[in-house]
């Protein structure tokens, strides 16, 4: 083994050298070159003791002192993991969830303005943004379609339809609103999305619903900004920049599967980026930055599967897997086989000997694991094409413990009522949920009409935070803590009035209506099984996103449907007419008063006819008496 490693050493040094050089140019250049990555894979495979790239690079740098003076080398402490979870859904649809995690033991903020200049796995475009705007935590998601909790269960990482962005700024930031505005514009450029439409009219500062998910117990919500764009359409132009943030791009690893024509031909598509500070190791002596890129997609039984309950990687993504991303320290595929212990529900081929269990979303699930870093996974054909073939009909799904829906009631364009129904399906446990509603100012919300009823009885929220809207400046923010009785429906209603806007404030299709962002329901739901509170243990990525503090409950976030609300519209074709007509009426008023004010009454003396006047002129000339 040692001989083998010695034999590989020169090549190894060479490859690493080229890696270092490629990074020198301050450009985010992931080693996309196919040959290079292949050789790197070989190295990793062949020399396990030298697998830690950082150590070697350090020795490499020790040899070249000039290099060290020229730039500070990146700390040899970043790692990349990728994984994909496939969960067959009860409805016959299939849910695929990708997670890519890059962890980097550096600190953008404490280094101050001199900032990190050397990037390896972490995308430089995001790193610069983080340090420039002193961002502590950043969560952004783009979603097309609505997650149907009642049919599909719970997603691993929930997201509302449209775009959602929430950011915790570092507490040293003085001008949070200014930073937020610039940040949204920059992100808008990075993700090719309309995030620049986020302004003060749709930004709120939730007081309780969005706590930092990473390290640090920031509670001052002045440093938090939350905004949604429910109308944002997600498409290929958002996926491409998102893929470019991955160390391997879409050239190798799981990202190969992301072909946009397949991904967007689905019932639900959600892509997200989550950046947060995490513990570097189990002692938590120092912090590291974690970048999680997630992509969730639900393929529809009928549109993508042609009605046949038969799925394969190729059918879903029109690609098969041939390799892991060479830069990834782990690359795995999990297939949820909890409901299929004896293989009576579906066939999974090729089958995997590896079985892992994880506690996720309050339930213990069993997964078949395919490790892509292992050669045998790919078998004889050197490609992995997972195939799921249903055999039996699945029984009804267990109702998720919490779900919510929302609708507008009432008719006409004058007023309405927003109903939010919160379902607690837990048979015997009551638990509190935080409901957050951010409504635009043009719905004039009458908070004093707020009613919360569960089981036909009034259920007074124990905490209500309401920030009134200001016309054309800021939206309504309504947050409340509601205790949901066991096995009940809690209905929250509030009345509103629809405003008439200026004609320039309407969207180009005003009669389509205005989208109102989802309500956010955050809750600590009682768990059926004990949750894993040991955050340091190596767990699959999908089960470790929301930190768990206690064993008895787990954190859950549910988004309701966005609303489509019609507003009364003026006639857009006649501004000139209106200006003319109204001014005429004012002029009628002005004119009639002016007339009466400036003139006086006089007896009307009709002037003599023309002939008489002419005759009189002649008579005057002649000197005879006038007529």
């Amino acid at each position, binding site marked *: 083994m040692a001989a083998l490693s010695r034999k590989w050493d020169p090549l190894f040094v060479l490859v690493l050298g080229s890696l270092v050089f490629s990074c020198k140019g301050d450009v985010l250049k992931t080693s996309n070159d196919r040959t290079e990555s292949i050789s790197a894979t070989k190295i990793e495979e062949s020399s396990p003791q030298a697998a830690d790239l950082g150590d070697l690079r350090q020795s490499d740098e020790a040899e070249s002192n000039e290099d060290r003076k020229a730039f500070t080398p990146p700390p040899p402490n970043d790692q990349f993991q990728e994984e994909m979870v496939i969960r067959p859904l009860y409805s016959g649809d299939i849910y695929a969830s990708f997670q890519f995690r890059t962890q980097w033991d550096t600190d953008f903020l404490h280094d101050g303005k001199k900032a990190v200049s050397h990037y390896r796995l972490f995308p430089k475009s995001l790193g610069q943004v983080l340090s420039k705007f002193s961002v502590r935590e950043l969560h952004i998601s783009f979603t097309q379609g609505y997650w149907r909790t009642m049919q599909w269960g719970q997603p691993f990482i929930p997201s509302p339809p449209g775009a959602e962005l929430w950011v915790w700024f570092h507490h040293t930031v003085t001008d949070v609103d200014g930073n937020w505005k610039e940040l949204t514009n920059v992100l808008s450029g990075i993700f090719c999305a309309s995030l620049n439409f986020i302004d003060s009219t749709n930004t709120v500062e939730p007081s309780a619903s969005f706590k930092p998910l990473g390290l640090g117990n920031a509670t001052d919500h002045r440093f938090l900004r939350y905004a949604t764009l429910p109308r944002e359409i997600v498409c290929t132009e958002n996926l491409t920049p998102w893929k470019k943030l991955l160390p391997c791009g879409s050239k190798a690893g799981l990202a190969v599967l992301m072909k946009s024509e397949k991904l967007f031909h689905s019932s639900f598509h959600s892509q997200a980026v989550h950046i947060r500070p995490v513990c570097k190791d189990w002692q938590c002596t120092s912090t590291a930055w974690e970048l999680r890129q997630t992509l969730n997609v639900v393929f529809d039984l009928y549109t993508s599967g042609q009605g046949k309950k038969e799925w394969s990687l190729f059918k879903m993504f029109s690609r098969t897997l041939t390799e892991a991303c060479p830069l990834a320290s782990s690359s795995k595929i999990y297939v949820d086989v909890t409901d299929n212990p004896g293989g009576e529900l579906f066939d999974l081929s090729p089958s995997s000997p590896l079985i892992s269990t994880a506690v996720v979303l309050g339930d213990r699930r069993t997964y078949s694991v395919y490790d892509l870093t292992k050669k045998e996974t790919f078998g004889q054909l050197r490609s992995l094409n997972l195939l799921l073939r249903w055999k039996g009909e699945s029984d009804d799904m267990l109702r998720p413990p919490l779900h919510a829906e929302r609708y507008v009631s009432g008719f006409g364009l004058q007023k309405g009522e927003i109903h939010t129904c919160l379902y607690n399906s837990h048979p015997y446990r009551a638990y509190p949920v935080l409901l957050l509603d951010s409504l635009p100012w043009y719905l004039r919300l009458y908070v004093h009409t707020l009613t919360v009823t569960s089981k036909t009885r009034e259920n007074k929220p124990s905490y209500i935070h309401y920030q009134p809207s200001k016309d054309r400046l800021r939206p309504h923010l309504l947050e409340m803590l509601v205790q949901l009785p066991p096995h009940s429906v809690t209905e929250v209603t509030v009345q509103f009035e629809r405003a008439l806007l200026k004609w320039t404030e309407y969207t180009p299709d005003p009669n389509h209506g205005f989208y109102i962002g989802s309500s956010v329901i955050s809750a600590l739901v009682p768990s059926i099984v004990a949750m894993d509170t040991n955050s340091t243990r190596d767990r699959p990525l999908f089960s470790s996103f929301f930190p768990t503090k206690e064993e008895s409950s787990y954190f859950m976030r549910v988004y309701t449907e966005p609303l489509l609300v019609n507003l009364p519209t003026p006639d857009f074709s006649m501004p000139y007419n209106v200006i003319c007509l109204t001014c005429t009426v004012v002029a009628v*008023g*002005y004119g009639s008063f002016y007339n009466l004010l400036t003139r006086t009454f006089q007896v009307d003396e009709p002037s003599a006819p023309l002939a008489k006047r002419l005759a009189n002129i002649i008579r005057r000339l002649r000197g005879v008496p006038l007529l």
Partner: protein
Amino acid sequence: SLISLTSVAFLLRGNCKHVRTKDSPPNICGFNLILVPDIKICRLVNVKTVIPMVQLLNWRRGLFPQTKMAAPLTLVLILSVTIRAVLFRSSLAELISERVEVVSPLNAWKRGLFCYYVLQENNISLFFQTPLVIYLFHFVVDYAEIVFMIVDGITAVALYLAVQNYNKNVFRKQKYALEADRYPHDCLELMRSPKEMHYIPLKVAMFYLLNPFTILSCVAKSTCGLNNAVMALFILSTLKGSALLSAIFLALATYQSIYPLTLFAPGLLFLLQRLYIPVNPCRSRFWFFTVQYSVMFIGSLLVIVCLSFFLLGSWDFIPSVYGFILSVPDLTPNIGLFWYFFAEMFEHFRFFFICVFQINVFFYTIPLSVKLKEHPVFLIFMQIAIISIFKSYPTVGDIALYMAFLPVWSHLYRFLRNIFLVSCVLLACTALFPVLWHLWIYAGSANSNFYYAITLLFNVGQILLVSDYFYAYLRREHHLSQGLYLRRKDGSEATLVLK
């Protein structure tokens, strides 16, 4: 004496029905004494004027018929309270309280309640209403219905007393003018008789209390009723000659909705007239009183504003109430001219037109004060009418206040040119408002232009109504100085024109 009256009337070839004893004042013993010098005049003029003349001259001797008017007024009050109570209890109350014609963002009970709630629960000051009104909510929120009915009653009684007082003044002036023989002799037709004027205060109270507009406004619990009460009290205290109370109520009304500021001029003119101070800038007494009244007004305004500040601990209400009134950010449809105009306005002209439209409301004060400086009460009427037509968030409650004054000018009826047309327009518009609103908002078969057209027509109707009354008033004054039956130079009947 009754027999003698009848005989005299017959002597004068009078019609018997004009001298029915039940119409006659109860105490008429002085009749014979004063009849003799007046018969000369009476012979010259139309017979119809004889009886009013008799009554007029009776009044001169302190024999003005003073029947008890409290009973009918009480009756009207009870009737109006019953109507309101029934409506409050019916299912219509909620419907009415959401009508855009009846409530505006500034005076809607729902918004007030909302501000009150937000202030109480979250301690956030958010205003559509002035802080004092919101503070008032604290006390009245549980018995709002009774309070609004009482407020309407107060307004009616204040208007009743004010008009009674005004009529007395009118009589006194007419008496002096008659005694000084200042009127041309053919103008006796235009003289106002006690009989005709007897019921005017009651009619005013009725016009206010039983006006559907007031009833709707009250049932909707629009705080417009409060503003009207403050204005009515201002008018009452002015007509009673109490400068301090007048200034205080004017300050309150101004505090509530800026626009009553224009009533400063008629209030001052009336008080000056009452104190026999000529409006002459060269006289120190004029300036002394003007400064005195202004100081009282500004002082009480400051006190009220500071009181609001101490109640809330912030000045937020100034921009959010007065900025809201002046810059018209809320374009909810109403019966006024602002909403659609500024919904359709080009952005770069918005500021200009807001200035124009707001100046328009205040602008008429100066020329009207100059023209009507001898007639401050009519000036008050004109100002209230102009405010309710041209203000930024008008409601039917505002219209009800100036419409209550129409009986006071019933003697102008003969000079009104198009009262029939205008009444028809106003009635038709009132009926069409809910119809077109329904078509636009609920049925979706009409668009905003329909409702807008009706607001335009309604405002034209109001403008014509007010300018017609103005015309009639000026014309009557002209006739009182020039004679009723004017002749041309050649002796033919003349027509009067404005030149």
